[in-house]
Structure formats: C-alpha cells, structure tokens
C-alpha cells in the first residue's frame, strides 16, 4: 500500500514538474493586460482553406516568437501578445461578421489578414469606422490600398476622408501583371500561346498579358480550359499540329490542373523544348508537389511573388525552417507576409508608445522602417505624405512599394524551389542568365 502511494505521488510529481518548469522558463515579466491582434483568414469552405491555415500558422508563430522575446515593450512594460484568428470562409458577409466579433467581443487592438480580396474590400469600412490599425498580407485587388478612391464598381467612396487605418504589404494586382510579359519580350518572343483557366483569375490575367504582348507586336492565341480537366491531349494536339511551334506556352491555370497540363505538355515534347519556352503557374514553386506530378517538367519557368530564396535573410531562413518542420514544404509568400504583418504591428505599437491609441499606431506604421523576413518595410504614401505625384497609381497609398515579383526556372529534375534559378528581373538573377535553354546547365 505504501509503495503504491509513493508511486502515485511520483507520477503526480512528474506530471506537475513540466508545468513548473514551463513557468520558470519565462524570463520576462508580463503586464496583466494581453495585447490582442485579430487575424482574418479562410479556415473553412468556400474559402481557400490551405492558404488560411498557413496564414493562421504564421500569425501564431509570430506571436510565439514575439512572446519568447518578452512580448511588446511599451514604456518599459512588457505585454504578452495574442492573435485570435477568425474564419472568414472567404465570404464578405462572414468576413464582416467575424471582423465585428473580433472588434466587439474579443476587443482586438489591431488586425491582420486577409486572403481574399473580396473580404478585404468588404471589411475595410468596418475597420475604418472602428479605427482598428490593420495590415493586410495577401489581398491583391488594387482598391484594397487605394484609399477608397477607386471603388472597383465605380461607386463613390464610402468614407469621404479615405481609408486611413488599413495598410497592405502584399503586391497590388497591377504590380504583378507585367513581369512575365516583360521577361518574354526581352527574350524576343513574338508567337505566344496562352492556356487559360476559365475563372476570374485566369481570364483577366490573360486579357492583361495579351494586351501587353499585342502592344509589343506579338501574336497571341488563347485556349480556355476548365479547372479540374484531366486530359489535355486534344488541346495539346492542336498546338502540335501547327505549322510552326510557338515561341512560348504560357499556362494561366492554377493548382493540380496546372500540374496535369504541364506534365502532359512536357511528356508530348511540346514544351519546354528548344523551340518553345514553358511558363507554368507559380504553384510550381511548391517543388515537392510539382515534381511528384510533373516529373518531366524540367526547364519550365514560373513567376514567384515574394522574396526569392537566394535573397532570404537569416530571419527568412529561420522562418522557412519552422514552416518546413510544421508543413513539410517551402513557406509561401503570404505566410511570410502574415508573419511580418504581426511584427510590423508590434514594432509600431512600441514606437507609438501605446497599444490602444489608433492614431498614434497608424502614424507609427506610416513611419515604419524595419527589416523583416520579406525585406525592408516602409510606406511612401499616407497621411504623412498624402500627395501622390502625377502618374503614381492610387493603390500606392498605404502600400509597401517593394514586394518582389520574379521569374524562376528549374534546371535540374527534382530540384527544390529554393534552388531554382532566378532569370528575371536582371537585378535578381542568380545564375547570370535570362533563360536556361533546355538540355544545358547554367
């Protein structure tokens, strides 16, 4: 009986010990108040759940790292930081409702998010009305940062004084569009075939790129496909039957469908080939998935939004390692941006000397100058510099001007996305060449 009692006591002690160690491990003294940041991400359908989960991970990783470094230090007092993520479901209606919950019930001091532009556009008014300093890390629509000047639907702005509390560190659509076209034109292509998914991503992107090609004198043939199609041989046979092979096949198709298409195109020897450049979707950067589905896809190029691996700072390498440990893949740009967004708010609150004075925090974000995983963050235009020079688009208001958009190219089968060559723009080239001809090595 006695031995049994000792055994139970020992087990209880072992159970309690880690808790004690965990508390003793904290080397910082925190104030009673916990600063709460609201995160908005799609965590269930019909939203892009995979993207939302990665963003949620990044928000919480940022909070963990900040707390491990003694939290947010304001006037000598350390505050614990907590991120409460709300599920927008990718729907403006749910996004608005959840934003209201985060503001009113969770009492958030600031916000980060969102994935879908429609949710960003729908919640901006509420964030402005409630004076919540916000840093968006993924929506691309130009109007998200256009200070309410450019309502997409041509309606007058809801807020006469503009949207002052919302910032964006992801690129605007207009910043992304031109890079691939400029690269291909620099290579002298003049016969382009576009294979385009029949969605609001594929169609406008194709229209924008086709207009740029045609303005430069190139001819463009466009083939529409439905997402989810598995057999592309009829389409590809039409391309094969042409008298002359096209200079480039540009794939504006996302996800698994783009992988299927690229593989079938490579397998038939259409592209990449000596005559035809293959430009596939940016999803190719997720190299594990890419090579599993597209084993013949060597020498395909793809565009990449976000910092390129060769420019990864120590912070980016460390963050990528944590992401790989958690998810087994390279960190996507929007997860990096989401991580940085929380750090920008932390830094701004510290410089503002407050977690609750919205005007002071907004002023501090406008004046931000900080090096994080994606690079140096700053904002050229805001209330600190309200006059946009002529020719500067309205979306530059509260917009980080330096999101990196590049063209990358694989040159070895099974290569990691981190090792792929950056071929454009020239300033970021990693292998001293603007294009790696199939069969050669840079």
């Amino acid at each position, binding site marked *: 009986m006695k031995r049994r009692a000792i055994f139970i006591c020992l087990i209880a002690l072992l159970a309690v010990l880690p808790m004690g160690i965990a508390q003793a491990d904290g080397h910082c003294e925190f104030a009673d108040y916990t600063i709460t940041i609201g995160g908005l991400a799609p965590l269930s359908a019909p939203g892009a759940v995979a993207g939302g989960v990665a963003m949620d991970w990044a928000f919480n990783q940022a909070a963990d790292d900040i707390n491990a470094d003694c939290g947010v230090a304001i006037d000598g007092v350390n505050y614990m930081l907590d991120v409460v993520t709300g599920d927008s479901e990718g729907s403006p209606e749910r996004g608005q409702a959840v934003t209201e919950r985060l503001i009113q019930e969770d009492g958030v001091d600031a916000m980060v998010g969102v994935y879908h532009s429609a949710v960003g556009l729908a919640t901006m008014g509420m964030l402005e009305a409630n004076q919540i300093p916000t840093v968006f890390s993924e929506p691309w629509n130009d109007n998200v940062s256009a200070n309410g000047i450019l*309502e997409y639907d041509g309606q007058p702005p809801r807020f006469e004084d503009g949207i002052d509390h919302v910032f964006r560190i992801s690129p605007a659509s207009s910043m992304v569009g031109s890079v691939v076209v400029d690269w291909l034109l620099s290579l002298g292509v003049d016969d382009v075939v576009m294979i385009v998914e029949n969605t609001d991503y594929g169609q*406008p992107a194709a229209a924008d790129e086709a207009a740029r090609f045609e303005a430069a004198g190139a001819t463009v043939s466009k083939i529409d496909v439905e997402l989810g199609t598995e057999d592309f041989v009829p389409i590809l046979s039409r391309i094969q039957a042409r008298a002359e092979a096209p200079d480039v096949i540009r794939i504006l198709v996302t996800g698994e469908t783009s992988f299927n298409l690229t593989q079938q195109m490579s397998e038939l020897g259409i592209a990449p080939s000596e005559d035809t450049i293959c430009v596939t979707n940016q999803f190719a950067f997720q190299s594990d998935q890419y090579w599993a589905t597209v084993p013949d896809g060597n020498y395909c190029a793809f565009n990449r939004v976000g910092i390129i691996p060769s420019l990864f700072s120590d912070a980016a390498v460390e963050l990528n390692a944590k992401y790989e440990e958690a998810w087994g893949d390279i960190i996507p740009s929007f997860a990096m941006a989401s991580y940085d967004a929380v750090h920008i708010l932390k830094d701004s609150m510290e410089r503002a000397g407050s977690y609750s004075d919205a005007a002071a925090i907004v002023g501090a974000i406008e004046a931000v100058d900080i090096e994080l995983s994606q690079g140096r963050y700053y904002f050229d235009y805001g209330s600190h510099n309200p006059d946009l020079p002529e020719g500067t688009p309205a979306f530059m208001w509260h917009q980080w001007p330096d999101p990196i958009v590049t063209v990358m190219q694989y040159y070895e089968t099974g290569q990691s996305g981190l090792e792929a060559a950056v071929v454009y723009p020239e300033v970021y080239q990693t292998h001293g060449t603007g294009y790696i001809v199939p069969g050669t090595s840079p």
Partner: protein
Amino acid sequence: MVYLRQIESRIDQGIGRRRLGYIVLGLIILFFLWFPNDTSQSNYAKTVFISGFFYAIMSSSWALLAGIAGQFSFGHMAFMGIGAYVAGLIARDGIMFATLGIAITPESFSAIGSIIIGTLVAGLVGLVIGWLLLRLRAAYLALFTIAFSELFRIMMLTEYDYTGGSNGLSLRPLLQIADVDTARQVEYYLMFALLIVCLLVMHWVANSPIGLFLRAMREDEDAASALGVNVVRYKILIFVFTSMIVGLAGAIFYSDVGSERIIPEQLEVLQMSLIIAYAVIGGMESLIGAAAGAFISRYMLEAMREVVISLPFGLTTADGGDAFVWETGAWRFALFGVVMVFTLRYMRNGLLYPFITWFSGRDLAMKETVSKRDGDGDDIVEPMGADDE
C-alpha cells in the same frame, strides 16, 4: 354521444394549445423586438441575428416551393443572386435600351428603386424558368435548376468587367446612417420586419385555396389536373412568387444591410445545400419550422466556431489556461451533418415538427383521422342527433 364529447374535448384541447402557441409566438416576437435594445448585446450578436433572418427567409420560401408545392429546386440562391446583382448593376450603370436609344442614368435610381427592379427581374427570370420547368419533375427538375444556378454563377464569375468577379459587387447602401450602433439597430429591425412580412404573405398563400392546389399538385400532379387544378398556372405562379421573395431578400441584404457586397461563391451549390439542410432540419412542410430551423442553425454554426470548456476545481491546462478552447473550423459543419443525418433518419418532418404540431393541435386531428381509418368501434362517429332518438 360519448364520442362527440371526446371530439369536443379534443377540439377544446386543440384550441387551447393553439392559443398557447400564439402566446409563445408572441413572446418570441417580443424577444426579437427587445433584443437590440439589450445594451449587453454587441453589434456582432445583432449581425448574427440579421444573417439568421435572411437565411430564415431563404429557407422558408424554399419550404413553400419544395415542401408545400413539391418543386424541388436548387435554383433558389441563383434567384437571390439575380435580385442582388441586378440591383447593384442598375444602381451603378443604369439601364440602356440601345436599339431604342433610351438610356436611364444610375442617378435616376435610388437604392429602393434598384431593389424593386432587382426583385422584378428575379420574378421575370422565375417566370421563364418556371415555364421551362413545366414538363420536368423530381430529379430532372433538380438537375435543371442546378445547371441554371451554376450557369448564373459562372456568368457572374467570368464577366468580371461588369460584375467584379470574385472581388464581388458592391450594392448601393440602402441606409445611410453614420453611427454604427444605430445603423446596426435599424438594419436589424429592417431585416426582421422583412422576415415577418414574407412569412405572413407566404402563410397566407399556403393557407389559401392556392395552397390547397399546390399541395394537391405535390401529392399527385395528374390527379390534381384531372380535378380541375390549373397545374401550369400554379406551377409558374409559385416559381415567380418565391423567386421574387428571395430576389427581394437578396437585394436588401446585400445593400449593406447584412453584407457590403455579393460574390459568386455565395451562389455555389454548397450554399444552396445549406438552405435545404436548414429547411429539412426545421421542417420542410412548415414555413415557421423552416424559418426557425434556418435561424437556429445559423446561430449554432456561429456559436460553435469556438467551443470553450471550463475546467472545474481550479484545474488548469498545460499552458496555464482555465479552459480548453477548441477552434472548430470546418468541424462545426461535420457536427451539423450529424444533426442532418439524425433528422433524416428519425424525424423526417424536422426537429421542430413535434412542437409545431402540438401547439397547432394538429396531432389531435391526426389521431382522430388515424383512429377513424383503423375503424376502431369505439370511435365510430354517431350520426348527429342519433342519441336523441
């Protein structure tokens, strides 16, 4: 004589219960009228209720169409979308009859004007679809409406130059109230009033001779037709009527009353299946049941986003918290699915059906009918006055 007394007693019971039902209904309405004035409630709670009212209109009108009229349509969300998109596009672009050289500028339309036109266009499309559906029944009708619904959604998605694609279309705000708290209160009452009005009108239709014809058509279309019911007329009529109701609800809800913009994803089959699920859970053949099912389901789905289980006896979690917090994410839909499966297996008339039949006294009438059908000697109705002889 004994049996007549039994009948009278049951009728009394029925009337008594119905009175009680009216009292309960009155109390529920009073609760909803009082709710926004409760200062402890946040705007978020009101937003959830506003959304609940909207889905209650959607589900109850679908119950009228499918549960009472027997037209199992998947096009309901599309008609809602037609109302909202037309209202938004007209308020933005106006109307142009190019061949006639007539152009009506957007400024000519108030928010109310664009909502009315959105509603009428939804009704007009309902008329065309209703006419096309005349010869289709059961699975063919469902497949047709799914195809129509997807067609409309893809149009809204790919014609992004006009509709905004997946960035959505922002409608002209119906209410221009600067103060957020006051705005939410007014939006709440507006949506609640719309729900009550829609329910009253649908109740009137369902309990009028038209409702009887619709039920007859649902049970046996050929027999109804043989008995003189103008099947063509009533089929089209109910399609137009429910299309207009959801078109109106969509145009109002997305005019910044419940949401600032509508997106094509809102019109997906998944969203439509939720409307059907709400109606099935509440009771497909009861307008109030379907409305209550939708409201309660929406509220529960929202409440279940985060499940908090407080730990007793001062126990703490590994990270020192006093409660386990479970972010349910998509799991709440799985739980919702379990409720749906349970309902379909054990309570096919809906979870609220027993309450509704009890309060209406309908269960007594049903017992009466069943006992008559079974020919129970004790319950044979004696001719009036037989006892006197």
